[in-house]
């Protein structure tokens, strides 16, 4: 390795170029900031900035377009996958990035994400699952854990009234049009490292011409959860019991791939 002059210190980490200098509106310790930073690092590393068309959700991350220096289109709540489909079909040579929260993707936007996946749209979706509606004040999301207290489940989520957490990523992984589905976490630096690898894979699949790729991120909402940021990160271990971290489907690598047919017991 080349000799470095003592007065030119090596930089081990610096603010990514694609991440703007504005201080974010996110609450202290919010995982959205971590995910934004990882995406900015990847956009820099893969030199995607000039060819990316990103779609912003309605959720706390609606302001993503203030922080990631690429072209953005704001989608109505839950419709990012449809908006991204329109972008994809009319811009075959661009990199299409869609960013959604769990209320956005797994509640109001259920039909849109499932059909974008069914069509095998060539796009990369970042799905930030913090188990709550952060933006609107901490109401239950479809991903809220059983027993979890939210402003719309004050006594904790009771499945008999409010239903069960929805395994949306597993459902998406059932579809032939899907190339990659993984679930990562921002719980700690190690998990964040793995998460970045998943995100990178999800981007590279699109760049290689692959179909629909999605990374679910187990993230936190300290405010909505009524915890300190460190507490909320620790709590992600419990979340992972309902939403196990790992690669759910990597069709190319033969991980988790399965046809619907294999799951039926003939009558």
């Amino acid at each position: 390795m080349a000799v470095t002059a003592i007065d030119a210190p090596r930089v081990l980490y610096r603010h990514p170029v694609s991440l703007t200098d504005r201080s974010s509106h996110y609450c202290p310790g919010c995982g959205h900031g971590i995910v934004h930073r990882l995406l900015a690092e990847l956009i820099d590393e893969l030199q995607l900035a000039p060819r990316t068309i990103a779609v912003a959700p309605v959720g706390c991350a609606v302001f993503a377009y203030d922080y990631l220096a690429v072209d953005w289109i704001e989608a109505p709540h839950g419709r990012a996958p449809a908006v991204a489909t329109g972008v994809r079909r009319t811009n075959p040579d661009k990199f299409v990035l869609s960013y959604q929260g769990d209320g956005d993707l797994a509640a109001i936007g259920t039909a849109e994400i499932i059909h974008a996946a069914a069509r095998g749209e060539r796009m990369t979706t970042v799905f930030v699952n913090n188990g709550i509606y952060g933006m609107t004040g901490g109401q239950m999301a479809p991903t809220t854990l059983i027993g979890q207290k939210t402003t719309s489940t004050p006594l904790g989520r009771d499945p008999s009234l409010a239903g069960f957490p929805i395994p949306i990523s597993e459902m998406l992984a059932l579809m032939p049009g899907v190339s990659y589905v993984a679930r990562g976490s921002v719980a700690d630096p190690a998990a964040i490292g793995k998460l970045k690898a998943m995100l990178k894979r999800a981007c590279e699949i699109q760049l290689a011409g692959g179909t629909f790729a999605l990374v679910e991120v187990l993230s936190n909402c300290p405010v909505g959860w009524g915890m300190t940021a460190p507490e909320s990160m620790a709590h992600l271990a419990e979340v992972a019991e309902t939403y196990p971290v790992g690669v759910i489907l990597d069709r190319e690598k033969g991980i988790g791939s399965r046809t619907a047919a294999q799951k039926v017991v003939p009558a």
Partner: protein
Amino acid sequence: MIAHPAPLAAEPLATATAPAPAAAERVLWKGNEAIAEAAIQAGCDAYFGYPITPQAELLEWMARRMPELGRVFVQAESELGAINMALGAAATGARVLVSSSSPGISLMAEAMSYMAGSEIPMVLVDVMRGGPGLGSIGPSQSDYLQIVKGHGHGDYRLPVLAPASISEAMAIVADAFELAERYRTPVAILADGIMGQAMEPIVPAFREPARPASTWQADGATGRAPRVVKSLNLRPEDLEAHNDHLQAKFRIIAQREVRYATEDLADAEVAIVAYGTAARVARTAIARARAGGLRAGLIRPITLWPFPTAVIREAAPRLRGILVVELSAGQMVEDVHLAVEGRCPVAFHGRTGGMVPTPRDVLRELRVLWATTTPVPMAPSDEPRADVTWEADLWQ
């Protein structure tokens, strides 16, 4: 006599890029098919839709033609999907068409409001059917208030075009794209089940509007600063400024883009205000009325917004009365009242649920209106005498 702003009319026909049937021989197309082909010839890059009667043939035509031409056709999972795909495609600068019918149109309200707010140009065709609810699949004009007034939330206006013949519909499609892109706004075309399902021989003549050099769309920040296409302005001060900008734009559209046609108005004692299919019925009724010595005339709005308020307000004092005919329980009649402001009596005749007024009914209403109103001293008229044929309604 056809009123339309010079700019559009002045523009020469661009030669269609997609191979079109030889302009010589006439073709027999359904309205739905003609509108679809007109969009293709107008340079439509992408179509997104979802099946619904009575506009299914439009989607099916696109399903066949767009892939042939290497353009984008997607049958969405729903109207919500379709209109939001359109939002995405159009936000990158593509020329986009979406079509549906009443119940499906209702599902597009939110995204239409987003597009108006984000200033995304796009053309939406509503082939109206009987409502409310699931209603019937018969022809109707009962989405007027929805499309013209209050479809989505928030302060915005939607330019709305209403053809009365298949040929006119084809011309209007090109104009709709042009308006949408010139003013960066979604534009609606209001047709009805008959317009969509009927066949008329048409001369396949088309127009592809020039593409304005647009500097707003999010198509990848190559060699430029990133762009954001959005409608959110969390600071009310910012959102109000944006609304002021939108309102100023709407005022300009209201001034420049009013379109309408009049017939037999010069010497008319009573006039009918009607658009689309209702105007065709009115036309036959007027012919029968004149054959019987009753001098009736027609004012036919072609743009429902901006509404031809001036021509109606100007004509009102010279008329015994105005008869509004709609395939509805009475929707456009509100705008006629706003234009007339009491300057002459306004009567209404409408049929609903898929029923269509007959020339006989309209003639009867004309006679009643005439009989129940008093004569007006004829003022010297600035209207040309000559009758107008429907072909003349075409804007090229």
